[in-house]
């Protein structure tokens, strides 16, 4: 098919719903068909494009003023016929009325944007929508797979069967056996006895030591000196929890000036 001169083509294009291409065609029944199609418009821009097409000139040469008049007339008639108009059609009507007056009235001040620019912008948008609409129609009219052109009806299909080749090695085998054996060997578990400081004894200890002074004391000073490392760890943990508990009970306050810094604790005088 020929693919040139698409911008100028004004013929009804195939494969497009008759309902909208037909509108522009019927001149004598214009009013009726136009209003009946009210639901068919996809918004004001769509309606404007159709009205512009009625000027039967290239979209680059349409008269915006004439177009505005046509649109406003259309809206007035629709209102006279008491047809329900969506709000956006009325918004567009108001905007176009403004545009028209701005285009006609002499201007003292240079307005920004100028009415000419607004008109041009509208024209450019109509051109673009028009171009896409015609492109869509021409696209749909192409020879299409499944309608005009067919692929093979019953292709055999290409099948790829994946066959798995398993791989392993002697070491893995022997190692696996060793692990099975080791896993199921009877096992003796030993739990070694460790010296710890219980929370209760830490609480007693910390409370007792806090009773001695009202000054701040470093938490580490509460720990038993010369204890073996495992006991020191346990004592630190228990003393810390004990300090928190005393703070919660309102018997002590805790401060720490920086992250990981020394934690200090002192008694609250009752």
């Amino acid at each position, binding site marked *: 098919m020929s693919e040139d001169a*698409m911008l100028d083509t004004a013929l009804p294009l195939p494969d497009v719903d008759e309902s909208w291409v037909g509108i522009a065609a019927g001149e004598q029944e214009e009013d009726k068909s136009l209003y009946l199609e009210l639901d*068919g418009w996809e*918004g004001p821009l769509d309606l404007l494009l159709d009205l512009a097409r009625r000027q039967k000139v290239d979209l680059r040469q349409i008269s915006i003023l004439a177009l505005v008049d046509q649109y406003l007339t259309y809206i007035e008639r629709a209102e006279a016929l008491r047809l329900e108009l969506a709000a*956006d059609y009325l918004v567009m009507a108001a905007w176009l009325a403004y545009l028209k007056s701005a285009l006609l009235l002499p201007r003292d001040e240079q307005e920004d944007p100028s009415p000419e620019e607004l008109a041009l912008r509208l024209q450019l948008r109509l051109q673009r929508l028009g171009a*896409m609409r015609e*492109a*869509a129609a*021409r696209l749909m009219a192409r020879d299409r797979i499944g309608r005009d052109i067919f692929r093979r009806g019953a292709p055999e299909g290409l099948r790829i069967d994946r066959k798995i080749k398993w791989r392993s090695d002697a070491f893995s085998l022997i190692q696996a056996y060793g692990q099975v054996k080791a896993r199921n060997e009877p096992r003796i578990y030993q739990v070694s006895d460790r010296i710890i400081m219980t929370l209760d004894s830490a609480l007693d200890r910390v409370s007792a030591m806090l009773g001695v002074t009202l000054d701040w004391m470093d938490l580490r000073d509460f720990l038993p000196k010369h204890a073996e490392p495992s006991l020191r760890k346990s004592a630190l943990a228990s003393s810390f929890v004990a300090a928190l508990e005393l703070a919660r009970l309102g018997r002590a306050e805790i401060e720490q000036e920086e992250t990981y810094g020394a934690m200090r604790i002192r008694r609250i005088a009752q």
Partner: protein
Amino acid sequence: MSDAPDETVRAIEATLFASEDAMSVDALAGHLGGLEPAIVRAGLTELAAHYEKRGIRLVERGKRWHFETAPDMAHLLRKEREQVRRLSRAATEVLAIIAYHEPVSRAEIESIRGVQTAKGTLDVLMEAGWIKMAGRREVPGWPIIYATTPEFLEHFGLASRKDLPGMDELKAAGLLDPVDDALDTAMPGEEEEVEAETSEENDANLAATGTEDENISAESAA
């Protein structure tokens, strides 16, 4: 009588004939045991020439090759087969806008059409396999952008997007450029400052809240 084609050509012919999907040169080369792509390409060219005047043709669509019936046979084949999907007018427009502008965001589609795009429209086109999401635009809001697929080219018989009807003319006429760009060239000397603001306001007026009259007909959906 034609000469017997060589084994590679026969293998390509058999593979493409049997395949349910179109195949790229690389896919063919891989399937044929790692042939040189150049050899496959030469074979395809030979085959395409051989089939040129026959009832079936070998064609390239979006870098993938397949056999199909010759276009002038449509009248014979069409009558029994009406499986092609009928799209609503809105969907065809959206498809055209995506094809001619891709990649394109929904807001960009809407600014051309002047109406909001109903949710179903893009879904229908994606379900048909003709468009796909193609990432996000790097602007505020990170909108998803859409592009066409190789199946789109296949379905509409296009070797590539360059073959879209009227593509060159539309490009030359600047009709694929945004309105703002066209305005700049059409109105030289205009101050640029107010431009962005104006266009927004303007678009809001024009696009408004037009509801889309979607009648997505799924006649073909068997």
